[in-house]
């Protein structure tokens, strides 16, 4: 058992967590940046393939007010417009800052290249070739963080629970996985930046550690979650043939650059039949495309493995090589030749619009507890625009880090004695939850997670209905209340995979219940929440849904959407 002290603890070392570390450290706070995987390598950032939206105006006249308008339109009346405003207004400055820090945005000398992505009115999305945006961004930020003497980086530290006294966060307890040692951390402020929760769905583009850790930590600490029902399903995730060494969302960048034709099992274009357009410009929104593909499958017009065909066969080898040279080689290693074959694609869980409720300083209703990045709810409403996730991580990370640093002067440190007591209390509580002898010898955390993912995919996925949601809620509560308490993680200390899986599942079950409860309460179809038996939008639900824990139970209530008065300003070109 160990006791450590820091001004600001940052949980999660992707783009949001690293940006938060930089801004907190520059505000003279001491920072501990931890990740349950390796710094900058786990989570979603490193997997980002291409688009980062920012109204730079380098390829077409643009202004951030137009980015804001597109974001709000895509969010279908549910955006917390004050957060969307922060995202869109500050995104260009962050892109330039990253350029100054040597992120090699694809460019024509002084002009950064920007492409059109679905839902954007102009060419607004920058990228790093080839499909290298995430790794490039992660490398830049890792380098900047390493320069700061007041940031301590800790890989392999899983945060188990937060310590809260009188609605103020005081620290956290964690597990140093490689040493198998519990740690008590005194922190005056905490930033949750551990990403999304798409790992809860059987088909996903998530990394292993995206099972909703931030959300569960926030909820148990007394913070609110909002709009948990809105999970973005990426329409054209790779389905077949088997492809390894590539992120399954790789086909979107191909479409940004090269078009590509989406065809049903009869090799006919079909998006038009659902009210969308899908020509060479590739402008159809993600929610509609995902819906259309699954509806085609339901009608018996799917591709052989249950998706749609995506064809680039109209392009020559030279054109493909020019646009994606190294990637074409990787495809070749998987025996895929795009000039000779179409590939199969299908919707996969990709991003979560909902998340932790914060104000414009990124603070939750718990004092000293902040959030940043994908785990923040509200900025993207009911459906996220392509390219908004990375700028959201940059902008919210920076604000959260600075806000956290600002609070530290008013806050005392937890005494080591109280820290030890909190740790002991938490460990006693955890061991109370772990049975000494498992009643279900054949059930493991992994198997239960596998069942949960299947249940969520089948009943809380792209197309939902009342009966499916009821089944899901009942089953999740059974898992959470009857099965989980009877699981026993394997003993052992060093790199105890079984204990890590158990801790993940503990968070995932809570998040799954929150999503199902929220989906069940929203009796309409809007954005990424599509109810087959209520196929219309309803003004009554033009509200954000808040989920909190009251007396040990998850409770839902409705709240007015935060609106913002703004005027569109004239679009202009820049080279800055």
């Amino acid at each position, binding site marked *: 058992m*160990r006791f*450590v002290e820091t001004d600001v603890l940052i949980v999660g070392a992707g783009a949001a967590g690293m940006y938060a570390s930089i801004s907190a450290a520059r505000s003279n706070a001491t920072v501990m940046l931890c990740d349950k*995987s*390796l*710094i900058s*390598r*786990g*989570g979603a950032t*490193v*997997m980002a393939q291409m688009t980062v939206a920012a109204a730079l105006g380098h390829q077409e006249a643009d202004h951030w007010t137009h980015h804001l308008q597109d974001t709000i339109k895509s969010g279908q009346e549910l955006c917390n417009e004050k957060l969307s405003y922060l995202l869109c207004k500050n995104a260009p400055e962050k892109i330039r800052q990253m350029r100054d820090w040597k992120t090699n945005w694809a460019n024509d000398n002084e002009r950064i290249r920007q492409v059109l992505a679905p839902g954007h009115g102009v060419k607004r999305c920058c990228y790093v070739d080839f499909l290298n945006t*995430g*790794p490039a961004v992660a490398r830049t930020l890792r380098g900047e963080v*390493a320069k700061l003497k007041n940031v301590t*980086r*800790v*890989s*392999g*530290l899983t945060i188990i629970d937060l310590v809260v006294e009188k609605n103020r966060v005081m620290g956290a307890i964690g597990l*140093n996985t*490689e*040493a198998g040692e519990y*740690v008590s951390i005194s922190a005056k402020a905490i930033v949750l930046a551990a990403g999304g929760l798409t790992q809860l769905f*059987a088909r996903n583009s*998530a*990394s*292993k*550690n995206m099972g909703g850790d931030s959300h569960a930590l926030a909820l148990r600490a007394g913070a609110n979650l909002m709009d948990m029902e809105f999970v973005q399903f990426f329409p054209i995730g790779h389905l077949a*043939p*088997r*492809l*390894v*060494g*590539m*992120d*399954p969302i790789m086909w979107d960048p191909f479409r940004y650059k090269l078009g590509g034709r989406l065809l049903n099992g009869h090799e006919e274009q079909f998006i038009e039949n659902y009210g969308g357009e899908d020509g060479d410009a590739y402008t159809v929104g993600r929610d509609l495309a995902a819906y259309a593909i699954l509806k085609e499958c339901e009608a018996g017009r799917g591709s052989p*493995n249950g998706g749609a065909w995506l064809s680039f066969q109209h392009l020559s080898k030279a054109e493909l090589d020019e646009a994606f040279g190294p990637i074409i080689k990787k495809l070749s290693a*998987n*025996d895929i030749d795009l000039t000779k074959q179409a590939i199969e694609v299908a919707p996969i869980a990709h991003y979560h619009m909902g998340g932790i409720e914060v104000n414009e300083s990124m603070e939750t209703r718990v004092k000293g507890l902040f959030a940043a990045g994908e785990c923040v709810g509200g900025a993207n409403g009911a459906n996220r625009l392509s390219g908004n996730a990375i700028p959201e991580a940059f902008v919210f990370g920076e604000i959260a880090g600075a806000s956290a640093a600002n609070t530290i002067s008013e806050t005392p440190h937890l005494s080591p004695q109280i820290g030890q007591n909190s740790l002991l209390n938490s460990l006693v509580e955890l061991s109370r939850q772990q049975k000494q002898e498992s009643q279900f010898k054949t059930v*493991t*955390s*992994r*198997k239960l997670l*596998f069942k949960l993912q299947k249940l969520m995919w089948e009943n809380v996925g792209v197309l939902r209905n009342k009966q499916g949601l009821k089944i899901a809620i009942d089953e999740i509560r059974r898992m959470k209340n009857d099965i989980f308490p009877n699981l026993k993680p*394997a003993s*052992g200390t*060093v*790199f*105890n*995979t*079984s204990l890590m*899986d158990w801790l993940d599942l503990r968070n995932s079950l809570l998040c799954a219940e929150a999503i199902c409860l929220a989906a069940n309460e929203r009796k309409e179809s809007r954005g990424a929440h599509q109810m087959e038996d209520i196929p219309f939008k309803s003004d009554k639900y033009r509200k954000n849904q808040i989920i909190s824990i009251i007396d040990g139970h998850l409770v839902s209530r409705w709240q007015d959407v935060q609106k913002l008065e703004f005027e569109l300003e004239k679009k202009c070109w820049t080279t800055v």
Partner: protein
Amino acid sequence: MKNNKQQNVFAELSIFRGANSTKPEFETFRVPFQQGASILDALIWINDNVDESLSFRYSCINANACKECMMIIDGQVEYACLKKLQKFGSKLEPLPNKTLIKDLVTDIVPPKEKLLS
């Protein structure tokens, strides 16, 4: 792995177990063979279905982005997410030039990213 259509075909993986490099022990696991699957797919299948305590590093799941799954596969340094599962099986060992932590996990954490006492 999840849509395994060739249920009769198995591949055998011989995997280093334990936390003590001086006493190497290998355990053999039979995993369903699927065309195009990676070694990482097979390791995850073992965690899901046979032995949840088998330890190996990975985060991004077959995207070759996190670069955490490096190990020795049939004598060569490889990423488990890029190396394809072979019908005749493979031998998996931890990286030899790093301190062993457990099974296929070695200490690849940079010294400045550790919790110091």
